[in-house]
C-alpha cells in the first residue's frame, strides 16, 4: 500500500517541511536557555514544571514548544538568576498573568472546596460508615429467665469441679 510521494505532492511536502522547520517547532527546553549554575537551573526547572503554558492545553511551560512558553522559561530563569525566591517568582508571574498561570491553584477562599474535597469525603464518608456499622450491630438481647437459670446451673457445675 505504500506509495512514493511524487510531483507536486513532494514539492508541497518539502515546502511544508521547510515551513515547519523555520517556525521552529522546537523541543520544549533548549540547551541554550539553561542556566550555568546547576542548582539555580534545577530550581528554575522545578518552577517551570508548575507553571502553565497559557496558550496550550494543559501543558507546563517546561513541556511546551510554544514561543510564549519559551519566553516565560527565559523570564523565570532571569528572575531566578536575579536572586528571587520561588514564591517571589510565582508572585511576579501571577501579578502579570493572573492565577491562571499556576498549575497548582493556591489555597484560598475561592479554592477552599477544591482543596477540601478529599478531606471532606474521607471525614463524612468515615462518619457515615461508622454510624452505619453501629446502627447495624444490634444490642445483645437480655437473657430470658430460662437462660438465666441454665447459666447459673453451668456456673454452679464449674464451682463443684
Amino acid at each position, binding site marked *: *500500500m*505504500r*506509495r*512514493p*510521494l511524487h510531483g507536486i*505532492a513532494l514539492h*508541497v*511536502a*518539502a515546502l*511544508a*517541511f521547510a*515551513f*515547519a*522547520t523555520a517556525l*521552529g*517547532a*522546537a*523541543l*520544549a*527546553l*533548549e*540547551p*541554550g536557555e*539553561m542556566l550555568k549554575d546547576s542548582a539555580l537551573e534545577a530550581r528554575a526547572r522545578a518552577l517551570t*514544571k*508548575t507553571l*502553565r503554558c497559557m496558550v496550550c*492545553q*494543559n*501543558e*507546563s511551560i517546561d*513541556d511546551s514548544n510554544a514561543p510564549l512558553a519559551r519566553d516565560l522559561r527565559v523570564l523565570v530563569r532571569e528572575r531566578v538568576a536575579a536572586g528571587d525566591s520561588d514564591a517571589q517568582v510565582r508572585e511576579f508571574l501571577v501579578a502579570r498573568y*493572573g*492565577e*491562571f*498561570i*499556576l*498549575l*497548582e*491553584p493556591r489555597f484560598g477562599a*475561592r*479554592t477552599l*472546596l*477544591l*482543596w477540601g*474535597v*478529599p478531606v471532606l*469525603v*474521607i471525614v463524612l*464518608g*468515615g462518619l457515615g*460508615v*461508622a454510624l452505619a*456499622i453501629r446502627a*447495624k*450491630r*444490634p444490642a445483645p438481647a437480655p437473657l430470658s429467665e430460662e437462660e438465666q437459670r441454665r447459666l447459673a446451673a453451668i456456673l454452679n457445675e464449674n464451682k463443684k469441679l
Partner: protein
Amino acid sequence: MIAELSHYALVLALALAIMQAVLPLWGAAKNDATLMGVAEPVAIANFAFVALAFAGLTALYIGSDFSVTNVFENSHSAKPLIYKITGVWGNHEGSMLLWVLVLALFSAFVAAFGGNLPARLRANALGVQGLIATAFLLFILTTSNPFLRLEPAPAEGRDLNPILQDLGLAIHPPLLYLGYVGFSISFAFAVAALLEGKIDAAWARWVRPWTLAAWVFLTLGIAMGSYWAYYELGWGGFWFWDPVENASVLPWLTGTALLHSALVVEKRDALKIWTVLLAILAFSLSLLGTFLVRSGVLTSVHAFATDPTRGVFILAILAFFIGGSLALFAWRAPELKPGGIFAPVSREGALILNNLLLTAAAATVLTGTLYPLALEALTGEKISVGAPFFNRTVGPLMLLLLVLMPAGPLLAWKRGDALGAAQRLVLAGGIALAAVILLYITAGGSLMAAISLFVAVFAIAGAITEFAERIQLFRVSAGELFSRAIGLPRAAYGSIFAHAGIGLALLGIVAESNWSTERIVALKPGDQVSIASFNLGYTGIGRREGPNWIEDVGRFEVRRGGTLVAVAEPAKRVYVARGMPTTEASIHTFGLGQLYVTINDPEQGGGVSARIYWKPLVLLIWLGPVLMAVGGVLSLSDRRLRIGAPRRAARAAVAPAE
C-alpha cells in the same frame, strides 16, 4: 451505495434499539413472558445492524471514498492500510459509532449467554441497554452522521491527525470503549435490580464477571494510552492529568471500588445499597467522560468535537441517565434489605475502607477536572488545576490505599484479627524498609520518594505474603505446598496478581520520577554524550521519506562499556497532507529501563539539540497494569463465576442450534 446502505442499517438499528428498550421493560412490568422474550433476538439483531454500518464505514475508509465527508476529512489515499482502518474511529463520528458497536456487542452477549439469569432481571437489563443504545443512535443520526455525502467529491482527503497515525490508535480507543461501555452492563443490572426491588448474592455473582471484564479492558486501555502518550508526544511523560485522562480514570476508580464492594454483596450479603450506587456511578462517570471528550467542553488534544449542538445533546443524555437512575435509586434503594453484620476490623471493614479511599480519589479527580469550569462560569475567574494539584491530593490517597491493601486479604470475614494480620506482614514491612534503606544510600531522593518506595515494595511483598499465607508456606511439606498452590482458587490468584501489579506500577512511577537522568545538549556530528552507563555518539542527520511523511532523522551510536548496543534514530517528522510536525522518539529497552532520545529541528551543518533520558524500571509503569489485567482474567475464569453466569456460554458454543 455503501454509504447509503450503512446509513440505512443504522436507522434500522435505531428502530430495533427502540424495540429493545420499550417491549422488555413493559413486559417485565406486566410480567408478560412473550414481551420479555423479545429482548434477546432484538438485541442480537441490533448488534448485527450496527456491525453492518460499522463495516460499511470501514469499507468506505479502505476504498478512500472522499465523496463521504467523514472520509474526506480524516483520511488520505497515501495513508497506510492499517491507519485507513483505525482512522474509522480516529474522529468524532466514527468513534461514536464504535461506542455504539461495543454497546450492542455487550447487549448481544447478555442476550446470547444470559440464559441462566432470571427472566425479569434479564429483560429489564436488556431494556435499559436498549434505552442507552436508542439515545446514542439518535445522537449519531441527528448530530454526528458519518455517512453524509460531499458534492462535488474532492480528489484527495485531508488526512488523519499525524499524532493519531500510530498503532496506539488501533488498540487504545477500542480497549477504552470496551471498558467504558462494559460498565453499562453493571449499570443496567443495577437499574434492573432497583426496578425489581431485589438484590442478593446471586445478583452480585451475575454482575461481577461483567464488571470484571470491563475493568480489565479499562485497565489495559488506560495503560496503553499512557504508553502511547509516552512515546508519541516526545517528552517522556507518561501521565499528564489531562482532563481526558481524568475522564478515563474516574470510571476506573469507581469500577475498582465496585469490584470490591460486589465481593461483599456476594459473600456476605452486605453493602448492597452502596454497591448499586457504585454501579450507577461507574457508568455515569463513563458517560460523563464521553461527554467531556465529545462535547469539547474541556479543550484538550483529544477533543475533536467542537459543535455545541452535540454538547447539548450529550448533556441531555447525561441528565436523563444519571438523573433518572439516581432518582430511581433514591426511590427504591430504601426497599433493599440491609444484610449481614460485621465488626469494623474485618474483611468487610477493609473493603469499605478501600471503597472510601477510592471514592475520595474519584471525587478529588472529578472536582479538580470540573472546578476551573465551574469557577469561571460562576465568577468569571480563571484558574488552572493541573498535575501538581493531582499529585499532591490523589497521590497521598493512593499511597494510603496501597499501604493498607496487603492487610485486607489477611483479615477474616465478619471479625478479623488486626494484630495477627500485622504480625504476618512484618516480613513484608522489613523487606520494604530494607529496599528503602538500600536505594536511599545508593540513589538518594526526597522524603516523598522514600515513602512511595516503601509503599510500592510493601504492596508487592504483601501480595506475596497473601500467597504464602494461603498455601501455608513454612508450615506444610513441599508436596503439600504444591497441591495447595494448584488447589488455590483462580480468584485468589487474581487478587494476588492484581495487588502485586499495582505495587509494581507504583514502583515504576517512583523510579521514573526520582531516578531518571536527563541530558539536554546541543550536539555537532562527532560529539559524545554520556548518560547513566551509556555513551552516545552523534554521527549526523539524514532525511527519510515514508508513505505520507518526510523526516530529519538523527543517528546516535549507543555504547555501553565500549560495545555498540544500539543505534538510536530519533526524528522530526512532517506529515505531508497537514504540514504538521511530530517528534518521533527513539526508545531502546535495556532490562526494565529505557533509553529515550528525541531531537529538535536540525541546524545548518548537521548540529542538533537533543534530549536524552535514561529511565530505570520505567516499563513497570505499564507492566504493572498488564499484571493487574492478568489477575482480572484469572479471576474471571474462576469456577465460582463460571457457575454464576456464563457457564452456559461454553455449552452454547458447542451446540449453537438447539
